[in-house]
């Protein structure tokens, strides 16, 4: 079976800055893949390219066997790409349930169906008790969870998680990890950008390390963390030699 997501030789330039250079990655169905790398490695840019926020300067993006390079974000969502945002973007004047209904409307045109689906997702993500609260009244951990819930309501094949576990307390992060596993068990492929190594490494099946806009290493988490190139990228030459 072909990969669910593939980027083929993707470049992204912002003026003179090259954010992604010749990035080719693939994500198989049912995998949890971690996209990691130091600050400024081009992770968020690659995420935005995959989600369709902007088209790549060069290269193509394939999703579910089709070239989606030129499709806008809304259409990619309809095709099955769900995403969360690094800086949460809740619909602040709407209640939690209404936030999720917006997502559910992609596949449910009848309001009653959309509402039922939204309740189901809130149940799944553990937000059911907060359904009628305004999104602006949620605590940060709940807001991140709402981002995930909203994206799940669109019934994606691929879920892009942009630092959903960052900035959480250890307990909150563990609940988050459990949720990501649950999502994968529900048959949804996950590509996640994450900073917190000790949380993300045990969780993912495969890790892709970006550095300076290029793919540096990719492989099993245990191998990736020992790779001298990765240690060098994060900590500098001295430590790489020491390792």
């Amino acid at each position: 079976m072909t990969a669910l997501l593939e980027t083929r030789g993707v470049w992204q330039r912002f003026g003179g800055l090259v954010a992604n250079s010749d990035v080719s990655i693939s994500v198989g169905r049912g995998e949890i893949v971690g996209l990691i790398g130091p600050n400024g490695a081009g992770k968020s840019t690659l995420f935005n390219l995959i989600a369709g926020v902007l088209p790549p300067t060069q290269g193509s993006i394939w999703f579910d066997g089709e070239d989606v390079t030129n499709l806008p974000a809304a259409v990619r969502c309809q095709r099955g790409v769900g995403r969360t945002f690094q800086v949460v973007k809740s619909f602040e004047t709407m209640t939690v349930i209404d936030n999720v209904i917006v997502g559910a409307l992609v596949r449910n045109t009848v309001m009653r169906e959309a509402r039922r689906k939204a309740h189901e997702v809130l149940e799944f993500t553990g937000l059911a008790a907060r359904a009628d609260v305004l999104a602006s009244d949620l605590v940060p951990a709940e807001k991140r969870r709402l981002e995930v819930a909203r994206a799940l309501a669109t019934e994606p094949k691929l879920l892009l998680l942009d630092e959903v576990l960052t900035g959480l307390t250890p307990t909150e992060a563990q609940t988050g990890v459990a949720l990501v596993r649950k999502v994968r068990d529900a048959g949804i492929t996950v590509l996640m950008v994450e900073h917190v190594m000790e949380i993300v490494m045990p969780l993912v099946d495969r890790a892709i390390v970006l550095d300076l806009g290029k793919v540096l290493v990719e492989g099993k988490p245990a191998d990736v963390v020992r790779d001298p190139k990765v240690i060098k990228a994060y900590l500098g030459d001295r430590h790489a030699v020491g390792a």
Partner: protein
Amino acid sequence: MDQAFAARRRRDLIIAAVLAGLAALAPLVIKDVYVQNILILTLMYAALSQSWNILSGYCGQISLGHALYFGIGAYTTELLFTKFGVLPWFGMLAGGVIAAIIAMGLGYPFFRLRGHYFVIATIVIAEIGLLLFQNWEWAGAAMGITVPVRGDSWLKFQFMRSKLPYFYFALVLCCLAWFVTWWLEDSKWGFWWRAVKDNPEAAESLGVVVFNSKMGAAAVSAFLVAIGGAFYAQFLAYIDPESVMGFQFSLLMALPAVLGGIGTLWGPVLGAAILIPMTELTRSYIGGSGRGVDLIVYGALIVAISLALPRGLVSLFSRSKAKGATR
């Protein structure tokens, strides 16, 4: 949870029906033509503000140029009537359709603008519309159009002897605008609009085509406002550019919603019920010398509202409800 939601929807509908019923009976008690006149204007502005609220309140695209659509409704109706003998009812619909098309045509470039830039564009476009009509000879230019008197009839939607038919039409229009809003509130479009207002980028990531949503809101909003314009033209029986397309109409559509609660179901009606009688009364008490005093009143009200109740008067009701819910 869902039952509570459905119950609230039903409650809104019942309150609206009761209010509409009471309003329909009002002329039995209120015989004074001057007061009837105020009631008609109040209902009309409630309907207009409700329509404005669809684009600017729910979808968050603040327009201060809706006078353009109001004027288009008025002019389409009267031009078709005086030049081609088309009945005002058809003119009204034609005006609505033309206004909706123009709204989308303008939306095509202007919905790329955000925030203040969009507001400025709407003001400028409405002013250009006003200038065009002031100089358009065929449409009567600055002299305007006098609607020929053909005797009282529902067919020609013209009444000289009594204002009551206008009153009932305004009531129906107000109910229509309210009902459309009520219906849209729990529809795909309603959710999309609120999502677009709160965060367009997130909306887009959830499959909402932001641009199309704005176009839809603009079309519905402009259509209903143009119907109001057609009504107003028949009601006055005389139109000129300033009296149907002046900037004050854009303000008078926005203010009731802002006062009552922007982006809420009841805000525009509540706001109009307070604002319109108040301005009409101040205007008549102060008389000819006080032109502009009503504007001072608007200004003072808006300042007071934005300081004390930024979410409008309806938040008084929802606040007490929220307290009750959380104990």
